[in-house]
């Protein structure tokens, strides 16, 4: 298995009136070709920003992005346009990510028009029908507007648009979090089928751990712009090492009764990413925080094969599991 995408020490700071906002702050990760990398974290921890950086929808402040071994951190407009063919995105909000004034077919055909993928209009339309069929949209909907459709169908439009140029890699930014469970399941199944069929590589962003677990091969857990843990999907749930990951896992309400769950209640909320204090970002909420945690930012260390954790106090906190 080859590595399709690699991110090294990626940073993105936004200038805000109140100061520098560290949205993504030194993230390292890799995605293998044909696999799914899940990215989880709470709202505002920089998941979407990371996805956008990878796709060059935002310019990074620092760090590098490699695609198929090529450094694509700095590309010109033309190269970028070429790249976009291979890298696409599915957005979180199936309503606001579709132009309300365009019909379904207009939305799907737009990438084809931009890349002049087909010389004749007829072929283009044919391709649109094909795509609609692929994602399970009935042909009769071609002239409908997004608002006339339900969330699931809207999300299918977004997927069709992303697939139009036959990309290899798709960033899925919370593609199902706005959907009802029954529809969510339909979309997840569709995405899985497409991945198999087209050998797609996904970067799957979500805050819902159960969904991420369901779709991903590997999972990165983010906290306030930094990676705190990265691990193979199965292993993470069996053996979470970072205190944040543990809290996160325990907080998920499970639709089962009579199972005794030990809930780790975190104090406070995710703090402001503006001019963050030095040290471990999670320290203010960490139940085990020590002096060092507020002084030095922990490095991401490989503690077992393919399992990376950034925490100063691993040994003390995880005696049994290590």
């Amino acid at each position: 298995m080859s590595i399709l995408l690699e991110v090294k020490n990626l940073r993105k700071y936004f200038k805000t009136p109140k100061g520098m906002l560290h949205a993504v702050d030194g993230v390292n990760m890799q995605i293998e070709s044909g696999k799914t990398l899940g990215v989880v974290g709470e709202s505002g921890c920089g998941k979407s920003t990371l996805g956008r950086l990878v796709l060059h929808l935002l310019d990074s402040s620092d760090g590098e992005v490699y695609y198929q071994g090529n450094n694509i951190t700095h590309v010109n407009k033309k190269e970028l346009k070429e790249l976009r063919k291979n890298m696409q995105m599915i957005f979180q909000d199936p309503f606001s990510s579709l132009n309300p004034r365009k019909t379904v077919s207009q939305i799907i055909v737009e990438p084809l028009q931009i890349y002049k993928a087909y010389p004749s209009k007829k072929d283009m339309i044919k391709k649109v029908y094909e795509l609609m069929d692929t994602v399970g949209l009935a042909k009769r909907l071609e002239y409908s507007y997004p608002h006339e459709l339900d969330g699931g169908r809207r999300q299918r439009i977004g997927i069709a648009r992303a697939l139009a140029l036959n990309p290899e890699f798709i960033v899925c930014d919370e593609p199902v979090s706005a959907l009802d469970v029954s529809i969510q399941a339909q979309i997840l199944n569709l995405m899985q089928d497409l991945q198999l069929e087209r050998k797609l590589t996904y970067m799957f962003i979500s805050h819902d751990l159960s969904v991420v677990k369901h779709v991903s091969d590997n999972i990165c857990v983010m906290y306030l712009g930094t990676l705190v843990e990265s691990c193979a999907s199965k292993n993470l749930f069996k053996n979470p090492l970072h205190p944040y990951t543990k809290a996160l896992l325990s907080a998920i309400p499970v639709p089962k009764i009579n199972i005794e769950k030990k809930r780790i209640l975190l104090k406070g909320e995710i703090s402001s990413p503006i001019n963050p204090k030095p040290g471990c970002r999670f320290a203010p909420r960490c139940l085990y925080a020590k002096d060092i945690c507020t002084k030095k930012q922990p490095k991401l260390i490989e503690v077992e094969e393919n399992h990376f954790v950034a925490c100063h106090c691993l040994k003390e906190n995880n005696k049994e599991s290590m």
Partner: protein
Amino acid sequence: MNKNIRKKGPWRDVWRRLRKNKLAMFGLIVLILLSFCAIFANHIAPEGYDDQNLSRRFSFPNKENLLGTDNFGRDILSRMIYGSRVSLTVGFIAVGMAVVIGGGLGAVAAFYGNKVDNIIMRAMDILLAIPGMLLALSLAAALGPGLNNMMIAIGVGNIPSYARVVRASVLTVKEQEYVEAARSIGASDFRIIFGHIIPNAMAPIIVQATLGVAGAILSAAALSFLGLGIQPPYPEWGAMLSGARQYIRDYWYMTTFPGLMIMITIYCLNVLGDGLRDALDPRLKN
């Protein structure tokens, strides 16, 4: 519900929605009638616009001259019909120009932000501070009199307000996810601005523009006195209105009808504008 959604493009859809709005349709029909009058003025008007007859000055509306005659004994109705040509042209083209240029500038300012925004908007502030009369005078001097130059003068004066409105509206639309989606499929800035942002930022522009037409028609009158606009005897509503102000007490019909015409036009434009704003927004049902 689904059966009649088939087989029709987006414009038909707008039309379908617009048709449901009775008030807007009323406005549209009146405006179409007015345009019709303007285009075929020479066939419709009972008399020429310059048929003076000093012996029947200031006739009260009567069978022969339905709306009376003016101080030179010209038929007011005929002059109003001819006048619709200039007034409508000026109103629409001047405002159209201001919308296009001002809107474009505002959109660019909002889209690129920072320096570009600052430069454009400061330039707009400067333009806003220049008195319209002075601007018109110098434009008249630089370009010479005439209908086109009058429209330019009015248009230029209106640019800043449209730039502001569009900028504000684009700023909100710009944050929508579909703009980012467009970028992610490799759309150019041009395509994003004109294909995605502007159509969605249109509602406030439509409202502002419909109001603006009124102002344009009225400014036209003022400008013709500075040598910029259409010159007499060719009629124009605004000029008819302000030219007759000295007779307002004795011959009320001389000012009332042109004034009424302006008001009706603006009213129709506004209800149509409101209707269009709603119709153009597929999210709003009804």
